[in-house]
């Protein structure tokens, strides 16, 4: 039992970081019906940026979030303008899937030229510190990562509910046509939200590098998790993504401890398929038909 609870704690902490990455993905989908397959690669890119800042300029990885996130926001805006916005036609959404995949390959390629393919890890001095709470071990960096992710998710939700930009975003999510009629500049909202989605990846990525070793190819594993999180939560649903991320974290951690680590991520895919069997729109998804 002790081990199960320990695993649940671990899973929740990890799930929080995944929730942050997935939030960007689902937000972008909600606004422009674009699945950013490069989200995983952008996370890894951010992890490398933070790694480089740490190893060359000794910037603390948690502080580097403040540098990496705005930089990646700009990158996200550029990507949206150059690659995503230029897609036209009725199958622009499907094409975006492939364009962002190509982008992911490109990022992987560039990273492996610059950083090679060996695994890296950002290891600040406190990387190995462990806290013991009620007999359960909690790694300090994971706790930090979780708290940081939760804080950023809170900021994101405040941004969406309390600001003018947030209202424009939510209006666009609910009804793009109506939002345009109400004077929302759709292009601007889309570009900024894409940047915002990428910054979520960036913030999570800087943190990711501290808790996990990574290499340029790590994005495949990441994106498969992120995509199944957003599908499980319901495409476009922020709350759904958070819940699904926590479900994934806990499922994997418990299966790894109680059964076998090799079946951990498989078990999560099974959860996904079963949920889709019952609710094709995901846990919090809205059933919609293109009429």
């Amino acid at each position: 039992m002790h081990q199960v609870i320990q695993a649940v704690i671990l899973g929740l902490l990890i799930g929080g970081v995944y929730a942050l990455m997935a939030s960007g993905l689902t937000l972008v989908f909600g606004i422009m019906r674009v699945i950013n397959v490069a989200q995983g690669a952008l996370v890894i890119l951010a992890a490398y940026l933070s790694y480089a800042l740490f190893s060359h300029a000794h910037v603390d990885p948690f502080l580097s979030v403040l540098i990496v996130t705005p930089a990646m926001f700009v990158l996200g805006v550029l990507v949206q303008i150059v690659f995503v916005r230029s897609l036209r036609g009725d199958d622009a959404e499907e094409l975006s899937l492939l364009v962002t995949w190509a982008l992911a390959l490109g990022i992987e390629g560039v990273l492996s030229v610059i950083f090679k393919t060996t695994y890296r890890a950002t290891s600040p001095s406190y990387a190995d510190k462990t806290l013991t709470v009620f007999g359960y071990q909690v790694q300090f960096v994971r706790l930090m990562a979780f708290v940081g992710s939760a804080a950023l998710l809170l900021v994101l939700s405040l941004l969406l509910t309390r600001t003018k930009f947030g209202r424009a975003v939510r209006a666009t999510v609910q009804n793009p046509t109506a939002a345009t009629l109400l004077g929302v500049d759709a292009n601007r909202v889309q570009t900024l939200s894409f940047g915002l989605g990428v910054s979520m990846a960036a913030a999570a990525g800087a943190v990711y590098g501290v808790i996990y070793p990574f290499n340029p190819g790590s994005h495949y594993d990441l994106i498969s998790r992120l995509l199944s999180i957003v599908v499980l939560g319901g495409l476009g649903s922020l709350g759904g993504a958070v819940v699904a991320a926590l479900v994934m974290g806990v499922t994997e951690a418990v299966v790894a401890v109680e059964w076998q680590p090799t079946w951990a991520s498989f078990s999560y895919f099974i959860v996904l398929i079963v949920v889709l069997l019952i609710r094709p729109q995901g846990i919090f998804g809205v059933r919609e038909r293109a009429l």
Partner: protein
Amino acid sequence: MSRTPARLAAVAAAGTLVAVAATAATAGATRAGAGPIKIGISLSLSGDFSDSGKAAQRGYKLWAKVANSHGGVLGRKVQLVIQDDTSSPTQAQTNYQNFITKDKVDLVFGPFSTLLTAPSAAVANRYGYAFIEPAGGGPAVFQEKLHNVFFTQPAPVLQSADVFVKFLSSLPKSQRPKTAAYPSLDDPFSSPIADQVRALLQKKGVKTVYKTIYPSETTDMGPVIQKAASKHPDAIIGGTQNGDAYAQVKAMVQQKFSPKFVFLTNGPNDPAEFPSKVGAKNVNGIFSTGDWFPQEKSFGNAAFVKAYVKAYGGSSATIDPSSAEAFAAGQLVQEVAAKTKSIDNKTVISTLHKGTWKTVEGNLRWNSIGEPQGSDLLMEWIGGKLYPVYPKALALHKPLVPKPGWGSK
């Protein structure tokens, strides 16, 4: 309107044929003869295996450079034909097809990784080429029972940790571990080795208290180590690659779990990276294996290390063993040529099957399917440095047993 695609397809097809035919014509023109000795090598210069692929490339190129500065082989210059296989077995196989049937190279050397060597060796075998290969030591390569394969390391991958078992047996009974846990990576070069060690140790009465295989994308060793620690084993014996080995050590440090023996097949054997990844104070007493060591007194090793540092910079500690393995492949060809005055593939194959051959990797000899019959080195971190500690003849330091606690000298 529907005629256009037809024309287009025809043009495309014709274009391909013409291009292909043109290359075919030029390819036929270059024939083996008195020109340079051409050696075809497919290497992973991009993709998953590219780091090791490039290390092997450095070794091959260094050998060619050294050989050519001494007048080449049999009076002919050595020319390496290196092709990127993007870490894909399909491309590796294609590359060897090209080397043999298009470029008509004199010899071929192996690619990096068993996963690419296995399908490539079959191609070489079909055309009667010797397949001297530095990095394909997994069971899949030998499973085909090919007579043309020569693996240029002291022991097949599966037996690479046998040296650790021998070392444990050499200890006084009271010092030997009684229980062991085996957390291993699901990788052809990791978990099978741990399985092999487990089988041997069990025969010698070491109880297996825990065994698990984790997938390669597992980056979090916390739960695995936690579970292993809860069984209080005397030894942690992990079939690992670098990343997960670092993570295992970190998890042990975090959980303040310090068993008497820690043996990890890969990871701790990287003299430059390991201390930086797990902290220099946490390395002592950790065992690993190696097929090669910079200070090894093997044939031509001192010269190799010197030439390597001169050509690529760095220090002897930063030389990837893959470079030495590749270098050894070249040494073998030189020795066969010196002995038989021929580099004909048939001669190379039959000659290498007889006797022992001196290389930077030590003295090598093979059975009929190319499995080397020697033993790897047991390495241990002592006083913040990595030393070969067993077998005694090659040891540079006395082994340290048991492992000191984390953070101690």
